[in-house]
């Protein structure tokens, strides 16, 4: 979309002057680079190093590789569990592992993460027990891990709402003298919600240390990016809040870690929020319940298979001589063990006490809830008697 010459009513007779003399550009330092930052080619070969985004240390990249491989195996296992009826539904992270693991590695353990339903791999990469990570989708309670202990908000389903929470949490932490950073995940589709706007704006006005990571995986369920925005890229939203922004190739693990590391450092240094748009792709349907063939071409999916972030990182680390067959095999083995452990533990049905329904509505149940609890207790007792009879 470009400006067009307007309908000129009548030309002014006086001498014309040229376009305004160049004023200092107030958007400098806020606009993203026109092209996503990339440090590895799609085939995994390295691009020449760059000053603005130096390659992260090898140890970090090896760790990233490990967590991505384990994460992907976990993800496949979770999808398999839906087929066995052990999970109600599962939104896969496949293809987005560089973003999810990169985000975790760019943060300290005491930083906060605000994940969406899509971020199961980020959760497990953070060390959250996979069974706890799947509690929501398994249906025994809404959130299975302790968010306060794990510094990880419950996975957020109402889209974009977590963007505001992250701003508040980050501001609250800095208000209390702590140098915590909050990282909020959000999808391309959810950037259309008002809460994205309000959240980023609050963070900017209060200089809250938040990194907003938009995983632009090109679809919001079936709706393609072209229906979400007419912007050149989502990262161009940052300047409108005075928030520096960057685009990154979201399937280039090295670039993702480099860009997020810089974004986190920016936030931690007290410069306020940073917006990163990672260009990636959702390899699986929206969830196992979705039928992606209704709205996208299998060729498109195939094309993205060639940009697989794990293969890319493996190629790079092998080329750098810091990953060999033995290490790859060890990671694969670890991933298998992880999946097997998950599978086993998911085979036992959790026991859930119906009376716990009343425990966490308020700190103490209201008289109304006490009454209702007694009614349910009586019903359960009656059921038991019938069962016994």
């Amino acid at each position: 979309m470009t400006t067009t010459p307007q309908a000129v009513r009548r030309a002014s007779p006086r001498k014309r002057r040229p376009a305004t003399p160049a004023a200092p550009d107030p958007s400098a330092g806020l606009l993203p680079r026109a092209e996503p930052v990339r440090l590895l080619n799609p085939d995994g070969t390295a691009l020449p190093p760059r000053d603005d985004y130096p390659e992260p240390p090898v140890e970090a990249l090896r760790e990233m590789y490990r967590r991505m491989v384990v994460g992907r195996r976990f993800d496949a296992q979770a999808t398999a569990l839906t087929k066995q009826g052990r999970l109600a539904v599962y939104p896969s992270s496949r293809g987005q592992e560089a973003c999810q693991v990169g985000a975790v590695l760019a943060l300290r353990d005491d930083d906060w993460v605000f994940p969406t339903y899509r971020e199961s791999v980020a959760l497990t990469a953070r060390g959250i027990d996979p069974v706890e990570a799947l509690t929501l989708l398994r249906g025994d309670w809404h959130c299975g891990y302790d968010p306060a202990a794990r510094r990880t908000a419950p996975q957020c389903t109402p889209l974009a709402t977590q963007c505001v929470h992250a701003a508040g949490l980050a501001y609250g932490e800095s208000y209390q003298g702590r140098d915590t950073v909050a990282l909020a995940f959000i999808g391309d589709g959810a950037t259309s919600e008002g809460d994205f706007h309000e959240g980023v704006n609050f963070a900017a006005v209060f200089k809250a240390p938040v990194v907003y990571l938009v995983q632009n995986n090109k679809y919001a369920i079936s709706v393609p990016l072209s229906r979400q925005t007419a912007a050149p890229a989502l990262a161009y939203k940052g300047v409108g809040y005075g928030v520096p922004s960057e685009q990154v190739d979201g399937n280039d693990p090295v670039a993702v870690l480099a860009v997020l590391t810089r974004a986190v450092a920016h936030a931690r240094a007290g410069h306020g929020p940073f917006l990163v748009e990672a260009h990636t792709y959702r390899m699986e349907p929206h969830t196992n319940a979705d039928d992606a063939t209704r709205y996208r071409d299998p060729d498109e999916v195939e094309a993205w298979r060639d940009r697989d972030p794990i293969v890319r990182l493996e190629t790079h680390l092998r080329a750098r001589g810091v990953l060999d067959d033995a290490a790859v095999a060890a990671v694969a083995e670890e991933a298998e063990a992880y999946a097997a452990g998950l599978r086993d533990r998911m085979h036992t049905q959790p026991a859930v006490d119906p009376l716990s329904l009343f425990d966490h509505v308020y700190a103490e149940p209201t008289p109304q809830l006490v009454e209702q609890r007694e009614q349910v207790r009586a019903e359960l007792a009656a059921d038991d008697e019938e069962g016994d009879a």
Partner: protein
Amino acid sequence: MATMTMAKALNAALADAMLADDRVLVFGEDVGQLGGVFRITDGLQARFGDKRCFDTPLAEAGIVGFAVGLAMSGLRPVVEMQFDAFAYPAFEQIASHVAKLRNRTRGALSVPIVIRVPYAGGIGGVEHHCDSSEAYYAHTPGLKVVTPATVEDAYSLLREAIDDPDPVVFMEPKKLYFASAEAELPARKEPFGTAVVRRPGTDATLVAYGPAVPVALAAAEAAREEGWDLEVVDVRTIVPFDDATVAASVRRTGRCVVIQEAQGFAGVGAEIAARVQERCFHALHAPVLRVSGLDIPYPAPMLEHTHLPSVDRVLDTVARLQWDDQPDARWVAA
């Protein structure tokens, strides 16, 4: 007569409405090529083109506000909110504009839009996907609020909602989407705004709507064993409310239980109970009792059966209708 699901009947209603009136536009999240996550808009884009049925950016206030603007330009938007709780971002647009625009402009502007809201639970859905939000809308003057319980009603009520000159929040009970029944379409029998006696009975009246209607009918069936002959009234249009049908039934039976799936406190069931006792006090042998969801956030799938009004809970409540004309022991003491 053909067997079809409620989902199919809703789809047919949309298609027939689009055919009948080319001002009707259908839009929302994923309603285009995908046909909606519940497939209610399946095939509409292919049939009517992507200007008549289309996807929007992911923003519910945007969707509803856009519909307001389209209605101002003379069109008749039918929008889909993907799930109950995901209509909340549109609450301001609904409460402050959709509901009030006619009133604010002394009738100069109207907003004949239909907001379709798949609602309620019973499908093992995760959090935020199972809210019963009808009371929020029913409490907002200027909105009509409709909820079908049968396949034929799904068709006719949706057609009538689209033809209505006022905005209608059309609440679709998710758990009934794929229940099927014999149905003949088009099926428009009673005028819009009327409740219907789904099952005649003499001993007590069960008043229900939407997802609670099948529960009421099953309870009435089960009650025969206990020797009770229960009448079941399906409210259908919460606003406007059909006092005449409901009160006539309760005056006949002398006893009443109101059933809703939503949390009870200040819900539609409270309104019905309050109205019934106001209007039928001297006919009542017992207080009007209510069966509803618990006053808790909609629980996780493994616990939803404890939350939802069940046949047993309805029967327990019917049993407390003071058949011996004795006050309810629970509440005499206090």
